């Protein structure tokens, strides 16, 4: 779940950003599959995928991190449901599902003829085991808290699973798309696997590569390539060099615009600008002075020219946002006008808050791009309204301890990767300490809503309220850039929540 380990600082990339999610359908933008060049393609090709995010281990309930989602989700492991690249939830291992009238009982019928890589047939016991693994005491799953509404899991027969919830949860099925169905008899899941996906793990060489082989016994359409190899790099330059020298065919996610020029001007490559859900936040500690005062937060938000910042970090890429919600979330509204760049207004707000002469605060800044750049920019912008920023550069590990665990900060910069993560503002215990009873209530009601319309309506209210309160300052939305050899087609463009399905990738011979 981490998009933190980004550039040079990846030596220290450990802190992770997760999400809480709501709702069943998401109207995503972008279409499945890049570079639709048809023609002959090699069914037995090896696709080399370059990435900066190596799994820490192979278990997504034991701190595998963002890398394990990228490499294994959908490729090696499958859930009852899957989240498509454009954000839709589709049935996968579930043939069917029924919800009781009170919304508390879900009955899933499993697909027939599904086999694990070890050869064992999928049964309801495996589903029960997999769900319990996420809910276990030692589970590090980012979905654990969302799924804690599960009260009981029954397996009336080998193909049926009946889950009872303690209260309604409209995003239950969405959350299930993150639960890998694992053979209940499998062992050593941190270093090996036993899933049902179109690939089985061939070999993981830590620090270097992870290769997947097409699984002959797959229940569905076979993968469009014979072998998918994820090559891991710690450094974006090394990764781009690998693409330039054809050592890899595709880069899952470019983290700076620096190298893009040379790919854009070369017909052997295709640069795809997809939809991202990653937001760069100037997160205030809403429980620490002076950011307890709404006016101070609004003033800071209004004093920073986000457009100029985005331009200097990303060149022509990326989008401006006025709140935590990216355009691909169902409850998106364009709120860029709220607390927009306006120095005069910022000064006036500061005056009203009693800080006419400004103040000074420390900005805890993760030591990898774009944070230091953004921090420098913010420092020079806020100087114009009399606010002095002290930049304190820290490693992701320090960030996690100091900011996330100890809440020992005044303001910080952080990227939040996932979709539908607005709902964190409903949790007063979250690190930024935003505490609004009304918002908390709306978020709870939205989760217990009966229809998605009702849920969307409530979350729109949350969106507007947090934006007006300047709960944080949302600086910009990252672009999601996949660069690939023009021989390739069928690769994911949006890499939603770090997923990267390899099975549709076709390589011309």
């Amino acid at each position, binding site marked *: 779940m981490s998009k933190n380990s980004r550039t*040079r600082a990846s030596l220290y990339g450990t802190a992770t950003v997760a999400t809480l999610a709501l709702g069943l359908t998401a109207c995503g933008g972008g279409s499945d599959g890049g570079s639709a060049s048809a023609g002959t393609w090699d069914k037995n090709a090896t696709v080399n995928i370059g990435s900066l995010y190596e799994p820490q281990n192979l278990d997504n309930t034991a701190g595998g991190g963002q890398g394990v989602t990228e490499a294994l989700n959908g490729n090696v492991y499958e859930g009852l449901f899957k989240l498509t690249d454009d954000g839709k939830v589709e049935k996968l291992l579930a043939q069917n599902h029924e919800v009781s009238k009170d919304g508390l009982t879900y009955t899933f019928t499993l697909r027939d003829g599904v086999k694990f890589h070890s050869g064992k047939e999928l049964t309801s016991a495996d589903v029960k085991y997999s769900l319990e693994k996420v809910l276990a005491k030692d589970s590090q799953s980012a979905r654990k808290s969302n799924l804690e509404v599960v009260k009981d899991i029954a397996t009336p027969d080998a193909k049926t699973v009946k889950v009872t919830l303690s209260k309604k949860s409209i995003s239950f099925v969405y959350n299930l798309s993150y639960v890998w169905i694992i053979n209940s008899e499998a062992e050593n899941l941190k270093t090996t696997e036993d899933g049902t996906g179109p690939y089985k793990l061939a070999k993981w060489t830590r620090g270097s590569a992870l290769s997947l082989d097409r699984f002959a016994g797959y229940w569905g359409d076979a993968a469009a390539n014979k072998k998918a190899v994820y090559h891991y790099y710690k450094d974006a330059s090394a990764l781009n060099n690998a693409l330039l020298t054809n050592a890899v065919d595709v880069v899952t996610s470019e983290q700076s615009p620096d*190298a893009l*020029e040379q790919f854009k001007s070369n017909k052997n490559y295709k640069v795809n600008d997809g939809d991202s859900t990653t937001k760069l936040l100037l997160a205030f500690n809403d429980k620490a002075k002076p950011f307890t005062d709404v006016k101070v937060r609004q003033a800071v938000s209004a004093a920073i020219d986000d457009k100029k910042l985005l331009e200097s970090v990303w060149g022509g890429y990326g989008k401006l946002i006025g709140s935590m919600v990216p355009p691909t979330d169902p409850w998106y509204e364009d709120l860029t006008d709220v607390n927009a760049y306006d120095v005069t207004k910022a000064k006036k707000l500061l005056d009203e808050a009693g800080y006419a002469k400004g103040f000074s605060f420390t900005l805890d800044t993760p*030591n990898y791009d774009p944070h230091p*750049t953004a*921090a420098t920019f913010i420092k020079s912008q806020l100087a114009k309204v009399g606010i002095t920023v002290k930049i304190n550069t820290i490693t992701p590990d320090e960030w996690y301890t100091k900011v996330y665990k100890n809440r020992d900060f005044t303001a910080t910069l952080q990227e939040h990767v996932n979709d539908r993560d607005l709902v964190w503002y409903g949790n007063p215990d979250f690190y930024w300490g935003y505490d609004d009873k009304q918002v908390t209530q709306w978020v709870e009601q939205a989760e217990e809503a009966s229809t998605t319309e009702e849920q969307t309506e409530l979350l729109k209210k949350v969106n507007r309220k947090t934006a007006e309160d300047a709960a944080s300052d949302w600086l910009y939305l990252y672009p999601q850039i996949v660069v690939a050899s023009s021989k390739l087609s069928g690769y994911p463009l949006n890499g939603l929540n770090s997923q990267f399905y390899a099975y549709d990738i076709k390589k011309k011979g």
Partner: protein
Amino acid sequence: MTLPAAPLKETEPSKETTPVSRRRRSATLLAGCSLTALIALLALVSLVWLPFDTDDTSGGRLAGPGDGHLLGTDKLGRDLLTQLMTGARIAVQAGLGSVAIAALVGVTLGVLAAFAQGWLDDTLAAFLDILIAFPTLLLAMLVVAARSATLGSAILAIGLAQSAVVARLVRILVKRVLARDYITAARTSGTSWPRTVAAHILPNIWPTLVVNLALQFGLAVLAEAGLSYLGLGAPPPNASWGRMLQEAQATFTTAPAGALAPGILLVVLVVGVNLVADGLRDTLDPATRRRRT
């Protein structure tokens, strides 16, 4: 190891004549001083004047020379010359700071170790050998893990790592001096050992020591650049040359200025300091003076 056959037919080299070697010596020293002074000047000027503000990103991404930007801009639109000048300051700071630590800790340890006898002596010597074999980097990683990546951490780590090298050298030098008769005389006549160190030992070892510290300065500058390259040195937005090179790596082919200039300045500084060390060695070191002139 084999000997090259060809160049061995000449007669044995005669001793260099004094005027020639003296001229060459001063040439070395002069060249070294000029190169070092060039960088020192950049660093000093950066304290009082810079072409642009260090945080000024108004220049446009990776612009070429022009618009007041003598060397163009970096990927954030900051003036390259400004960055290079503040980088010079950081490089000089790193060199001086590390050498100061290395001198202080190294000389103290080395002198103490030199006075040790028997198994303690052997153990200390072996311990220093082991420490030297572990690279600065490892120490730097540990220091950074303990107290975060800052220029101070990098300097501390480099300085400590170099202390081992200096201590090892000082130990050998002091032992050599201790073996001389007048020291034995001084010690038997009841002179306290701190006094012995101050009056007899330090004056005897300082020429070699100074030369070595000058070499350590160059190594420290390189080490800081390496650490910054790995993200373990001065944190961004500080313009360490090592970090500038790391950042310019992605645009090496499209905007080579940013990937070449910091490297060239690094080489200039380190070559300069090494030449100074060579020049000093020939001027100061009594051993080489005796032998080669």
